[in-house]
C-alpha cells in the first residue's frame, strides 16, 4: 500500500465543482496553504473546481490560502466559526456583496460535528447555543433538567490537511497547535489529502505518537518547507502573484 502522491497538482486533481471541502488549520497554524494554492492553480487553468462549500474555522486572512480561494471566486458557501482576522477584507467584501453564503457555527460545535461525521454519529446534543440565534430551527431536548440543542454531523467530499510527518500508509503527526481541526477533518471526508513536511518510512513514526492512523487518509504529498500564512501576510504576499 502506497498513499504517497507525486505532486500537488495530482493531489488536488479529483476535486470537482460543487464539492464540500474541509480545509484544516486555525488561522494560519496547520493551514495547508500549498494544497489550497494548487487548487487555485487548477481553477485558473481549467475553470474548475467552483461552487465549493468550504469548512474551516476562519474565513482567511490577507490574500493567500483560504482568502485567495475566496478571492478567486471558487467558494459558494463557507461553514466556519470566526470569519474575522487581522485582514479579513476578502471574505468581508464577498459577504457584504452577497457573493458568498455563511453558515456560522460555534467553534466547539463545529469540531464536534466534524468528529461526529467521521465517527458515524448523525446527531448529538450540546448545551452550546441554547437560547441564542444560532439554535434557531434546531430541535431542543431536556436531559437531567437542562436544555440541549440537537446538532447534526458534518461530512465532506474532500479534506485538505496539513501534517508534519506522514508515512505511505497515511499515519500522521502534526506540529504543535497546527493539529487543531486537522485530525478531525481526516476522519470526516471521503477523500483526505494531506501535505506533510516529511514523508517517512512505515515505522518512522512511533506507534504511540501517531495522531491520525492511516485508515483516515487517502493521499499524502510532501511539501518540504511549507509556508506559514502569518509570514506571507507580514510580507504582503498575494496569491497568485500576477493578481497583485
Amino acid at each position, binding site marked *: *500500500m502506497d498513499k504517497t502522491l507525486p505532486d500537488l497538482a495530482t493531489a488536488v486533481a479529483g476535486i470537482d465543482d460543487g464539492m464540500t471541502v474541509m480545509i484544516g488549520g486555525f488561522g494560519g497554524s496547520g493551514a495547508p496553504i500549498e494544497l489550497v494554492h494548487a487548487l487555485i492553480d487548477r481553477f485558473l487553468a481549467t475553470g474548475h473546481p467552483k461552487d465549493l462549500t468550504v469548512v474551516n474555522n476562519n474565513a482567511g486572512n490577507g490574500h493567500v490560502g483560504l482568502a485567495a480561494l475566496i478571492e478567486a471566486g471558487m467558494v459558494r458557501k463557507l461553514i466556519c466559526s470566526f470569519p474575522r482576522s487581522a485582514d479579513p477584507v476578502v471574505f468581508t467584501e464577498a459577504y457584504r456583496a452577497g457573493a458568498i453564503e455563511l453558515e456560522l457555527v460555534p467553534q466547539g460545535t463545529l469540531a464536534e460535528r466534524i468528529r461526529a461525521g467521521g*465517527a*458515524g454519529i448523525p446527531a448529538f446534543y450540546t448545551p452550546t447555543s441554547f437560547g441564542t440565534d444560532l439554535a434557531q430551527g434546531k430541535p431542543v431536548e431536556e436531559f437531567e433538567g437542562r436544555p440541549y440543542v440537537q446538532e447534526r454531523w458534518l461530512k465532506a467530499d474532500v479534506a485538505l490537511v496539513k501534517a508534519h510527518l506522514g508515512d505511505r*500508509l497515511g499515519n500522521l503527526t502534526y506540529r504543535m497547535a497546527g493539529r487543531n481541526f486537522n485530525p478531525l477533518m481526516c*476522519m470526516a471526508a471521503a477523500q483526505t489529502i494531506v501535505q506533510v513536511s516529511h514523508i517517512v518510512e512505515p*515505522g518512522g513514526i512511533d*506507534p504511540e505518537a501517531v495522531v491520525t492512523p*492511516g*485508515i483516515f487518509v487517502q493521499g499524502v504529498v510532501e511539501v518540504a518547507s511549507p509556508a506559514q500564512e502569518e509570514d506571507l501576510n507580514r510580507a504582503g504576499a498575494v496569491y497568485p502573484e500576477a493578481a497583485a
Partner: protein
Amino acid sequence: MKLTPSQMAWRAAQDIADGAYVNLGIGFPEMVAKFQPPGREAIFHTENGILGFGEAPAAGTEDWDLINAGKKAVTLKPGTAFFHHADSFAMVRGGHLDVAILGAYEVAETGDLANWSTGPKGVPAVGGAMDLVHGARQVAVLTDHVTKDGKPKLVQRCSLPLTGVGCVTRIYSSLAVIDVSLGRFVLREKLAELTLEGLQALTGATLHLDGPVADLTVSEL
C-alpha cells in the same frame, strides 16, 4: 465433505483486496489473516485500539499489553498505530473499514445476523459485534453451514436475539459461498461434490441463482 475452519478462512481471505482495512471477529474469523494471498497486504484493525498489527508472537514472548480483541497476543509491524476505544469505534461506525468478518449463530436471508446471545439462559456478551455490523462496507460471516445438531444456520428469519438488521452481505460457510442481496440468499459457489438439492436441504431459506454457480475449491491446508 465440508470445509475446515482453516479452509473457510482461506476462502474468505481470497476476497480481501490489497490494502483493505479489515476487522476479524473473535474465533474462526481471526484465522483469515493467516491466508492472505501473496502480494496482497490487508491492514487489520482490532477493537481494542490497534491498526496494522502483525501475527501472533512465539509462545513465551507475548506482551500482554499487545493483544487483539480476542485477548490473544499479537505483534508490532512497521506502521502500526495505537489509539483509544472511541477512536477505534469511530473507525468502525464511521464507515472506514472495508470488510468485517464475523462468526454467526444464525444468518437470515434478510441479512439479519444473530451472534451474541443464545437466549436467556446464558450470560449475554455482545462486545464489538453490534458496532461492526454497521459501518464496514462489506459485512461477511464465516460459519459452519449447519449447527452441531445438523440444523440450518442460514435461515428465513433469526430465532435468536439479533446483532444487526439487514447487515450481512456475504456468507462463507463450510459448504458454500452465498451473497445476501435484496432479502435473498444468492448462491455463488458450492462444494463440487454437493448437489444444489443437497445444499438446499441443509439451508433454512431458498437459495437463489443469479448466474453460474462456481465450484468452491480450497486447497488441503
